[in-house]
């Protein structure tokens, strides 16, 4: 006789199954439809291009758990549960095919290896995962978890579901005593406990358990669209729907001429995908665990932003507010979202890099900012200053008394550094784009001087724009004035068309990201390189030779716009290692888990009035740097330079830690 088992053995009137199934499908569909209706109040957005690539990415993330395993314990139990449930699901599909379509593959070797052995192991895996998950939620209790009754219901429900599955198997095996029982080791083990019971009683228990198991399974399934369980569908879907643009394309363009509304004020102003994001959230809290603002101790949290918007989408207010405006169509700012939260986001991307379901947090902030800035002209005074300065003067540093070319005058005030000023006739290989933050801030000017000296030593053909340089526009876009941003892009496009160069070199990751990615939204294609990469290239080509190796202990701080946005982690480290005697130590939070200096997203202009020192993002990072015991902190971004100098000065009275830029480090080593 062929290895197999009888479906519906011992189950009379299994027809009722279909009634229950129908009810389940109805409840499930209603749930899904309700969510769907909510997403569809949003605007259009195209996310169904490049289907094959999307599929591949989704399968990778789902089956390899790339992001989930960033938290190893969670990654482990989730994989166990996921693996187990997926296999068990396939097992159910096999039965379903046989039962309803007469397609029988449930026999022979397949039955033994898959349907019996593999599924038993899957069940064990699932149970193990569930137990580990329970321990995580109720014993280890990570701070980022929010535990409510439905969590217990789901865990218990799944546990009971899988356990009853084994019990049912055990009962059946006990009564049938089939010869392949050992292929289902757990079931076989359990059948031992039933052997002492009368076969009729066991059969009765089996029947009871079978219906219970079925009902529970269907109940859980029906519960899916009303609970966190929905994530097993929405998560992979959200991964599938992710933006296929490079990370550096931070936000979509705004059609200023035709847009009826600039940015987002109420939920329908967002696209359906941004609303879909809200339901994909599993409340895991990894975003806030890595958010520098949250970690510095503020009451702000990216998860709370997403969940707040979700609550509003579902029509109930998360906060107890009497006014009508917590209805789905009411404004978000000031109701679901405290107003000051809007400006705290540094756009550092830690949340988005961490989120296992690829929720797009930052674009939501930017859309909300666009509305506040462009439609309402209502935003913090200290952020108005850079905008006003950009409009009148072409740089965001209101109150600076330096001109863009002051850094050319060597520190002593007398000798000018001789650098070629680009014009429309002579071609050079490299345009060294200095950037506002480097040129107009005293403490950063040394970076530009060092880079020029290094480029000269290496014999690179380069030039600068000098006073013709105009801000790349990044602060305007981050703060939300896309109109101003576009005028700045056009200004720079004109500047570029008037000079001849092959590559744009910059030491500022914000400018770097702008020119490399965001300007392409306007049809500007440039070859762009960051000074860390360029210096490494020169060193490797032997046009720059390091003579003096640094011996002090160093640590490297990854700038967000170089690291997370552009995945450039190795080049700066390689440069430091070449210039030092191998005495570099990593901070706890480094690489793609680097902790923002607080300067991005308008952060460099945020007022610190009323902000306790420990709650400052740059101070929090300074503490992390000091904890390494290093005497030098190397960074590769002028914003980081400013913010970290400031943060360190605030708490490091003894002056133990110095901040330098990569260029200065190399400059001193040549």
């Amino acid at each position: 006789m062929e290895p197999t088992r009888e479906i519906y053995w011992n189950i009379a009137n299994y027809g009722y199954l279909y009634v229950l199934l129908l009810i389940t499908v109805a409840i499930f569909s209603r749930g899904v439809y309700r969510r769907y209706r909510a997403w569809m109040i949003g605007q259009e957005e195209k996310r169904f291009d490049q289907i094959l690539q999307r599929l591949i990415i989704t399968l990778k993330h789902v089956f390899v758990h790339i992001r989930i395993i960033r938290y190893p314990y969670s990654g482990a139990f989730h994989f166990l549960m996921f693996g187990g449930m997926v296999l068990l699901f396939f097992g159910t599909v096999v039965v379903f095919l046989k039962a309803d379509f007469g397609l029988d593959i449930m026999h022979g070797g397949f039955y033994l290896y898959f349907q019996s052995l593999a599924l038993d192991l899957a069940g064990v895996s699932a149970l193990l995962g569930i137990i580990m998950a329970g321990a995580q939620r109720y014993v280890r209790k990570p701070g980022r978890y929010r535990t409510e009754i439905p969590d217990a219901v789901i865990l218990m429900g799944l546990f009971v579901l899988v356990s009853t599955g084994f019990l049912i198997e055990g009962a059946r095996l006990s009564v049938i005593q089939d010869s392949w029982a050992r292929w289902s080791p757990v079931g076989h083990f359990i059948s031992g406990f039933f052997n002492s019971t009368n076969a009729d009683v066991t059969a009765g228990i089996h029947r009871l358990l079978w219906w219970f198991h079925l009902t529970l399974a269907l109940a859980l399934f029906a519960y899916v669209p009303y609970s966190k369980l929905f994530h097993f569908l929405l998560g992979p879907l959200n991964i599938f729907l992710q933006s296929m643009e490079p990370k550096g394309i931070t936000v979509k363009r705004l059609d200023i001429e035709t847009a009826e509304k600039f940015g987002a004020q109420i939920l329908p102003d967002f696209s359906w995908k941004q609303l879909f994001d809200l339901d994909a959230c599993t409340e895991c809290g990894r975003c806030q665990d890595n958010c520098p603002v949250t970690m510095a101790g503020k009451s702000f949290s990216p998860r709370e932003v997403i969940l707040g918007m979700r609550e509003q989408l579902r029509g109930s207010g998360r906060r107890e507010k009497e006014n009508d405006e917590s209805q789905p169509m009411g404004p978000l700012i000031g109701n679901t979202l405290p107003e000051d939260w809007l400006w705290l986001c540094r756009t550092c991307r830690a949340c988005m890099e961490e989120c296992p379901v690829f929720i797009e947090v930052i674009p939501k902030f930017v859309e909300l900012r666009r509305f506040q800035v462009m439609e309402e002209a209502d935003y913090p005074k200290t952020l108005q200053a850079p905008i006003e300065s950009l409009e009148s003067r072409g740089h965001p540093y209101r109150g600076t008394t330096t001109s863009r070319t002051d850094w050319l005058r060597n520190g002593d005030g007398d000798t000018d550094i001789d650098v070629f000023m680009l014009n429309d006739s002579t071609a050079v290989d490299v345009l060294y784009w200095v950037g506002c933050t480097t040129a107009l801030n005293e403490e950063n000017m040394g970076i530009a001087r060092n880079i020029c000296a290094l480029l000269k030593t290496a014999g690179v053909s380069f030039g600068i724009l000098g006073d013709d340089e105009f801000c790349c526009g990044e602060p305007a876009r981050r703060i939300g004035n896309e109109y101003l941003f576009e005028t700045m892009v056009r200004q720079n496009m004109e500047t570029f068309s008037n000079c001849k160069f092959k590559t744009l070199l910059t030491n500022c990751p914000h400018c770097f990201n702008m020119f490399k990615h965001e300007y392409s939204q306007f049809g500007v294609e440039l070859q762009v390189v960051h000074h860390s990469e360029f210096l490494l290239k020169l060193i490797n080509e032997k046009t720059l030779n390091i003579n003096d190796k640094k011996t002090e202990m160093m640590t490297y701080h990854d700038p967000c716009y170089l690291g997370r946005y552009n995945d450039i982690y190795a080049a700066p480290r390689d440069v430091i290692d070449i210039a030092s005697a191998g005495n570099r130590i990593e901070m706890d939070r480094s690489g793609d888990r680097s902790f923002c200096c607080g300067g991005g997203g308008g952060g460099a202009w945020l007022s610190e009035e009323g902000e306790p020192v420990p709650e400052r993002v740059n101070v929090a990072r300074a503490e992390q740097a000091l904890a390494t015991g290093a005497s030098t902190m190397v960074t590769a971004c002028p914003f980081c330079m400013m913010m970290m100098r400031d943060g360190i000065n605030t708490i490091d009275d003894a002056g133990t830690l110095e901040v330098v830029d990569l260029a200065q480090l190399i400059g001193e080593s040549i």
Partner: protein
Amino acid sequence: MKIVVCMKHILDPELPPSSFEIEPEKKQAKIGKHAFVLNPYDENALEMALQLKEKKEDVQITALVYGETKAEESLRRALGVLADEAVHIVQETEQQTDAYGTAKVLAACINAIGPVDLIMCGRMAGDWDAGLVGSLLAEALALPSVCFISGLEIIEGRLRVSRQVEGGTEILESPLPVLVTVTNDESNVLRIAKVRDVMKAHRKPIQQYTLKDLDVSVSDLEQQGAYEELRDLYLPVQDNVCEIIEGEGPEEKIDALLTKLKAQKIL
């Protein structure tokens, strides 16, 4: 109620000192590619006018500029924050005008515009730092004036202002029409324009007058013998090197410092 806000489009007062240069023959600041902005005190005046408009019905604000073509940027700015009208008196590029001349031109235009209830000017322009045009304009129009106001109200058709003076604040009253010059205060920082309004502002018409339209001739601008005669314009000699005050002890250093400050006419 009709308000005219007189504005000047000037070289950015926040231009970094190292970028500031003089053209000695022309006795003018070098313009080059430097930014030009709306005179900050005129911004304050505009803001006060706008606040008045919000509180009262039937207030019409006309922004008025005497300047070259690029001065229209300031007019667009005024329209962007919702001034009702913009008027540009065209200044020929090579035409130098002193305070008297400017006052004359503005007076002619205001008379052409029609009966005005309130004229508002910034207390001075951030380029020439003279602070004369407002008062001269009041004389030219035979109007009373109050200078350096920081608060303004219209109560029953009369003006009530608060004015910063040495030692305190004066509250003054005046019938309309009257001219005021405005100084900066935390309450009159010019509002940020909404982008949509800025976009509309670019499409609004600007009324233009030439000197000919106003019946003012170039010779009229020279107030006979009183025309401002500029002999020279130069950069003050400045050494950015800090003088570290030496001394045997704190007492000596203090004395030395005070002597130097007195010599510099700061104390």
